[in-house]
């Protein structure tokens, strides 16, 4: 039997029960729409986050010590100040290392400027090379040993009028002392603060030079000498190719030779992560999330396919006599199978073809609501249509098989 003719006959069967076919299709529409909505949102979210994170990829290795087995929390989570100034120098001399930027936090209560005071939990103490990658809207990096600060635009914007380069600010330290400093640079709002300041976030940040602001010191074991200790380091590799090797040698140094190894609490371990590691982690997290939600949506698709199976079973029973007639005039089992499978496949196809735009619409509405720019996963539209047809065929398999093996005499006798 020609394919075109079965198509015509199946289409006619679908049309002869319009409402029923529409309701059956609706089950698949909802299933496919749900899947497409979540996949589209997942894709958009990924593109959004990775766009923020991955835009300015650097050959950096982020190093910190955290409780063993700690998962997530991002770079620097749970970090203890264990890296001594000698460690920093030693790492700087490892092969493949371009520079090392130590970073610590100075606990503060507030920042004042022009008579206004805003609360600020901490400022970040680091070296001028922290700003090597640029990102200044105005001004320059601070100089080591001078009372200078760099703010990001969010921090400058806390004051009205905004703090400008050349203004003086007062840092009220947690110890109760106040320190005056001059604003020498403003960072772009979008340039972020680096991996340790949280990815893609835009909180107000204040940067100060370690000297004279950072006072956290420890006695280096075995030397009797006190040194500044830092909770986090950013090791900049010479180039991207050197990143994995640098990461390995830094880790080896820390574990075997460093002061940090002696200072670190027993159940702590060193973490060294590259930008790529971070991106991979975020990707994995987003994938898990998207897969989970999509999995739930797939359940509604399964429900939709059960609807098709159900309606096809009814349809086969209802048309037992017609099946008998067709067989009596020479229809082979496979002709009957083909007819009913096609009918089920068409229901699945219509469901997915209608469900896809509905799903995109749903994703669009949700993206508008949470302020996400939509990225359409085109390949998923093709997948959805293919899955729709497949769902129809799978759901129709048993009913169609039943139809095909109907005995013509029994069927003709059927009332």
């Amino acid at each position, binding site marked *: 039997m*020609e394919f075109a003719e079965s198509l015509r006959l199946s289409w*006619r069967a679908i049309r*002869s029960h319009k409402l029923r076919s529409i309701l059956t299709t609706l089950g698949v529409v909802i299933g496919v729409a749900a899947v497409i909505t979540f996949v589209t949102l997942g894709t958009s979210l990924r593109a959004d986050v990775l766009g923020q994170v991955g835009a300015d990829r650097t050959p950096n290795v982020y190093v910190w010590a955290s409780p063993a087995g700690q998962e997530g929390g991002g770079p620097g989570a749970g970090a203890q100040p264990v890296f001594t100034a000698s460690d920093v120098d030693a790492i700087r001399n490892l092969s493949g290392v371009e520079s090392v930027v130590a970073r610590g936090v100075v606990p503060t209560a507030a920042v004042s400027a022009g008579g206004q005071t805003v609360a600020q939990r901490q400022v970040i103490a680091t070296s001028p090379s922290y700003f090597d990658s640029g990102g200044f809207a105005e001004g320059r990096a601070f100089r080591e040993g001078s009372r200078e600060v760099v703010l990001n635009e969010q921090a400058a914007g806390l004051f009205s009028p905004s703090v400008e380069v050349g203004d003086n600010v007062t840092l009220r330290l947690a110890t109760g002392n106040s320190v005056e400093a001059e604003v020498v640079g403003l960072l772009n709002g979008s340039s972020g603060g680096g991996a340790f300041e949280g990815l893609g976030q835009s909180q107000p940040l204040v940067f100060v030079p370690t000297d004279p602001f950072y006072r956290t010191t420890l006695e280096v074991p075995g030397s009797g000498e006190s040194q500044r200790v830092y909770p986090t380091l950013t090791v900049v590799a010479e180039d991207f190719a050197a990143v994995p090797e640098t990461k390995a040698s830094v880790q080896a140094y820390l574990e075997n030779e460093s002061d940090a190894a002696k200072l670190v609490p027993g159940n702590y371990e060193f973490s060294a992560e590259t930008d790529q590691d971070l991106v991979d982690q975020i990707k994995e997290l987003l994938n898990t999330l998207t897969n989970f939600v999509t999995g739930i949506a797939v359940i509604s698709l399964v429900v939709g396919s059960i609807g098709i199976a159900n309606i096809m079973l009814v349809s086969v029973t209802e048309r037992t006599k017609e099946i008998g007639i*067709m067989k009596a*005039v*020479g229809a082979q089992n496979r002709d009957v199978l083909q007819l009913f499978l096609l009918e089920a496949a068409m229901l699945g196809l219509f469901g997915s073809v209608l469900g896809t735009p509905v799903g995109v619409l749903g994703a669009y509405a949700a993206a508008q609501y949470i302020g996400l720019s939509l990225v359409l996963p085109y390949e998923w539209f093709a997948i959805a249509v293919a899955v729709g047809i497949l769902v129809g065929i799978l759901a129709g398999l048993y009913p169609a098989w039943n139809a095909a093996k109907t005995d013509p*005499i029994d069927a003709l006798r059927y009332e």
Partner: protein
Amino acid sequence: MAASDSDAESDVETGQGDAKGDHEGAAVSLRDVRKTYYLGEPVHALDGVDVTIPRGSYTAVMGPSGSGKSTLLNLIGCLDTPTEGEVWVNEREVSAISQRERTKVRGQEVGFVFQTFNLMPKLTAAENVALPLVFQGIDKSERIDRANELLEDVGLADRGDHRPNELSGGQRQRVAIARALSASPAIILADEPTGNLDQETGKQIMGLFQRLHDEGNTILMVTHERPIAEHAQRVIHVLDGTIERVEEIESPRRVETDLP
């Protein structure tokens, strides 16, 4: 087939005057056919039937309800298989071929006409007539031509686009006959074709069969009504699953063929 010719000789004893007991040259030939249904107690719907239907003959089958007439027809029409015995259609033993092959025979070598018409309700008259050709993979344009030609033959040229529920009983039966003819089968089987029709309409259908017979078709028709049976050349009387007797009709009834 040649191999089974020798058995054919030994099984000739059928007791039917004109039946040579051989499938050779016959449209249909049954040899010791039995059909038994096992529902607790075995029911012998057919209990040893031997009969030969020559080509171009017009045969009626009569008998009380439940005597096995429909069973006989279904076996010949390859809708059913015998429990025992051989059924030959067009010199081919259809009781010994695969289901697939039997379906082919059903579509190409026999044409069935039912008491309840059995038209596809969602298809037009023309599509119903063309349906057997669809399953044989005949070209669409050829199918349409053939359907129109046949509808014209049965006097329904202007009803091709009508659905069965828009046609009268007689018209439906004529569509069913046109469908039975569409694959140019060797034999037309009709199970009480006038059973659901009034006398006048029944006469029209008989006129149609008469014409088909005159044109050289083989017709085997089951009926309850003596006057209908008398249109045939022979009447096979069935009783309790066996052939009771075969009656030759001296001068079969003729209908004035004036198809509307």
